[in-house]
């Protein structure tokens, strides 16, 4: 029973930990991939005022530096402005993003989000990509005309006529409802900012310390502001911390259930052997030895059950980490809040180590009460127990 509780406890912890980690990883990776990238560079005033005059003064050396940095996987640059998008039926506020299609595809995989139409193709001039929700709101389709209106560098209201090249299906609210992607060259021409950009975004290789890399880039370009994804989106960090807290709570709940299971089983073991324990004390076995005997029994069972549970947990997480947990039945809901419909549980070696330590410690603590109950027995009473 104790061994079974150990096996199930460790397996449950490994699986629950891996599952929750997959949720977190899915959410953060999705947000990094499509929104923040691993890091961004701006003019220091741009992130506060979001004014088009705050473009990066000399962005090409930054691109060159990033291209030479091993940890940087891909880089793109963007020009940005807030404005209005209007169709013949509706108008709404929108963030207009001027992109380099090829580089943007590498960094954000924007091309993969195109549901209808094509990725900046099929339209001879001024193509624009908009999200599905925005298209619905404006009541436009692929090849429909829309007008983008905004202020240029001199503060003049300027407008450009664009044609919808593609409609994006994205879980991100900002992409699907309030973004319009145009060619950087088209936007820069209308903004009258020449070849300048407001934002450089980059992705990094797996295992990179994004925070440290941001500091390194910052030290090379002191006039600009370099931020990692944690600084760009504190909400993601909060999400990560919240998930970590939830995992801890889950661990406490599972450990508590495990502890009750062990206490119950070991108490039963003590009660079943009440005569035997009474006899041992009658013959002359010290109470401290009886106490240690019960403790060691539990620890022995834990050390046997622990590795078995660990192997089963490792096998489950490894298998599901490859095949994924298919939640396509709930995909609409999951994608709406930024998760993938297939989750891949994962756990680090340290997580397994912590689980084993936690379970063995729980078993140890849980065995104290039955052991204490055993030594409180009076031999004379225990011997006459039927």
């Amino acid at each position, binding site marked *: 029973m104790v061994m079974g509780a150990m096996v199930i406890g460790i397996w449950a912890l490994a699986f629950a930990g891996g599952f929750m980690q997959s949720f977190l990883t899915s959410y953060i990776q999705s947000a990094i991939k499509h929104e923040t990238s691993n890091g961004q560079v701006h003019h220091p005033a741009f992130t506060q005022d979001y004014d088009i005059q705050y473009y990066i003064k000399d962005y090409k050396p930054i691109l060159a530096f990033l291209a030479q940095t091993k940890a940087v996987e891909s880089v793109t640059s963007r020009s940005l402005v807030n404005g209005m998008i209007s169709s013949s039926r509706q108008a709404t506020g929108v963030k207009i993003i001027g992109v380099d299609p090829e580089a943007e595809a590498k960094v954000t995989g924007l091309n993969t989000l195109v549901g209808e139409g094509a990725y900046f193709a099929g339209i001879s001039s001024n193509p624009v990509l908009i999200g599905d929700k925005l298209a619905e709101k404006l009541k436009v389709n692929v090849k429909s005309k829309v007008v983008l209106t905004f202020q240029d560098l001199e503060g003049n209201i300027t407008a450009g006529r664009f044609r919808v090249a593609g409609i994006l299906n994205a879980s991100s609210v900002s992409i699907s409802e309030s973004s319009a992607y145009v060619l950087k060259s088209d936007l820069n021409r209308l903004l009258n900012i020449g070849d300048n950009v407001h934002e450089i975004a980059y992705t990094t290789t797996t295992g990179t310390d994004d925070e440290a890399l941001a500091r390194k880039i910052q030290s090379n370009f002191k006039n600009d502001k370099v931020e990692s994804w944690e600084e760009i989106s504190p909400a993601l960090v909060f999400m990560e911390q919240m998930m970590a807290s939830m995992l801890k709570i889950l661990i406490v709940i599972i450990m508590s259930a495990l502890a009750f299971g062990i206490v119950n089983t070991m108490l039963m073991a003590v009660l079943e052997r009440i005569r*035997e324990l009474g006899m041992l004390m*009658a*013959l*002359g076995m*010290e109470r401290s030895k009886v106490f240690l005997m019960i403790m060691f029994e539990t620890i022995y069972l834990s050390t046997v059950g622990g590795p078995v549970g660990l192997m089963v947990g490792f096998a489950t997480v490894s298998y599901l980490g490859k095949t994924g947990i298919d939640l396509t039945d709930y995909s609409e809901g999951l994608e709406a809040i930024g998760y993938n419909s297939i989750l891949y549980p994962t756990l680090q070696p340290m997580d397994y180590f912590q689980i084993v330590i936690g379970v063995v410690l729980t078993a140890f603590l849980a065995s104290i009460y039955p052991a204490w109950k055993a030594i409180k027995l009076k031999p*004379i009473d225990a011997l006459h127990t039927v």
Partner: protein
Amino acid sequence: MSTIIKATRVSKTYHKTTVPVRAINNLSLNIEEGEFTAIVGPSGCGKTTLLNILGGLDQPTEGKVEVAGTDISNMKDSELIAFRLRNIGFVFQAYNLIPVLTALENVEFIMLLQKRDRKERHDRAMELLGQMDIADKANVKPSQLSGGQQQRVAVARALASKPRFILADEPTANLDSTSTSNLLDLMAKMNREQKATFVFSTHDQRVMDKARRIVTLQDGAIVSDVKRQ
């Protein structure tokens, strides 16, 4: 012969119910070294209570019990445990062997508690099992032994610690007549040959017939004390 057990004006009152029950009433008893004594009497006369008090498993409400000159009446629990280990052997009605250990290991166990070395434990346990005619069952677990064989292992275990005396509470109560006779013959042999002192409670006439001293209790007091040659 010297006095091994000296109980003086011992009383035991239980307060487990609303009405106090006086199980032992102002009883005095001396047991000499090498005696083979049966404590007899009807059910509820106080036999088991007396044995528990003499064995240090229970303490008297009044009076004093000395074992080999040491007053055990007011000993602390931890002291009593150590005292029992060194001085008293127990044989229980229900054998109470450790089910996961073999007969040999059961006999060795008490010597393990006494911290005797492995060879001494093994040799003495085998010698005792041989004397109890169950050496061939040394490596058998209790569940595979008959009641009589289990009780012989229990007697060997009681003797293994070289106690000053052995207390046996209804040792033959669960045995058939043949096993009872065999066990009593072996206990009597150990008494004769090794001068082992036995004090046992019984209401079995066959056991009483083998005893050389019969102490009869009634209502917690001795009503007769007969010694036979």
